[in-house]
């Protein structure tokens, strides 16, 4: 009797479509990824179950363990204009390069008096200054934070009116360290409240229930 031959199937598999897809996804994620820029201070945020993402257009105040305050506005157009207002109020003169430097920077915790020196410094020197700084002053005697907040909101509002885009307004985010004192956070909220801001987004890590 003739044996029935079972047709052997080829064990190799055509992987081309899969590889195509993999590369497509790699390209997509590489292009959409935004890299984390260097931050002046590292903060370990508390965790919560909230799944709300941080909005894009934010004014962020960072509070570290020692209660030092750092300030940041994401929108570069707003940043530069806020800086212009602050420098004219505090009588600080900055060169065009220093303003450019400020535009590309992230958060900073320098009083106005030291800002020029900070912007002119090299990367390594800045890291040193970030360690040594006392943060942006926010006590009632010399409340620079309050001015940063005021100009930030005024300029954001004027730009929003210019663009006719009232929906995308500046959101206030507070990024506090787990170990920071709540009293400090409360004081900073009070500075905001004096500037008529009453709702905040507290930056947290995601955790399971």
């Amino acid at each position: 009797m003739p044996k029935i031959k079972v047709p052997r199937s080829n064990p190799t598999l055509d992987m081309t479509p899969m590889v195509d897809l993999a590369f497509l996804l790699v390209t997509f994620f590489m292009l959409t990824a935004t890299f984390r820029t260097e931050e002046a201070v590292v903060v370990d945020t508390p965790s919560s179950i909230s799944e709300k993402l941080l909005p894009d257009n934010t004014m962020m105040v960072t509070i570290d363990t020692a209660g030092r305050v750092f300030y940041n506005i994401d929108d570069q157009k707003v940043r530069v204009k806020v800086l212009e207002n602050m420098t004219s109020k505090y009588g600080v003169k900055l060169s065009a390069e220093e303003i450019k430097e400020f535009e590309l920077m992230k958060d900073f915790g320098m009083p106005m008096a030291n800002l020029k020196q900070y912007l002119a410094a090299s990367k390594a020197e800045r890291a040193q200054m970030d360690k040594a700084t006392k943060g942006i002053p926010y006590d009632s005697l010399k409340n620079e934070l309050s001015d940063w907040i005021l100009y930030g909101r005024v300029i954001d509002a004027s730009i929003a009116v210019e663009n006719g885009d009232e929906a995308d307004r500046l959101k206030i985010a507070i990024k506090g360290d787990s170990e920071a004192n709540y009293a400090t956070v409360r004081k900073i909220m009070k500075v905001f409240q004096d500037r008529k801001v009453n709702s905040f987004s507290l930056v947290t890590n995601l955790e399971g229930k």
Partner: protein
Amino acid sequence: MAELSTDSGGGGGKHQKKRAKKSSTKVDMTPMVDLAFLLLTFFVLTATFGKPKTMDINMPLEPKDKKKITKVEDQTAMTVLLTEKKDVIYYYFGVLKKDTKLDSTNYAPSGLRKILLDKNKDVVAQVNQLKEKKTQKTISDSTYKSEVMKVQSAKEALYVIVKTNDKTKYKSVVDVLDELNICEVDKKVIMDMATAEKLAIKKINN
């Protein structure tokens, strides 16, 4: 064509012609694919976890008119006292009287959350019902939100007063706010601790 067919047929033909060796056109793609997937995994993971999450909070305005200060119902009020201690929460219900004894609990799910869920169980049950209705699509998203708000701000719903002292850590406050969100407590306020409460804490620690 004929030559080709004879060649593939035997290989050991009589006329052995010299010919250039044909190298295989196939390249081993495995390392490349490995790398591609490695990168893919890396970017997927960093992309989703890169953006921080936020918890929204509204602070109450300072009332200009002292008469407009909200008075809290005794039965529905719970006061949570947070100190510098990271594993103890003191609390009491209603108004602090001379003979009120503080209870203590902790930040674990079996601690504060259990108490809150128990005290606020009617609201939690109603919100869960609404959630179920939303997943079954019997109510729309906007009605869900307004209904939840109505339930949470009802008169019988639990009202939590979080009180802090000078040394309370920021983490403790965020943790408690998080527990309140889990337990559907919307009526909440954060305040400074009164002297009477500080004394009460001292009393039970001695």
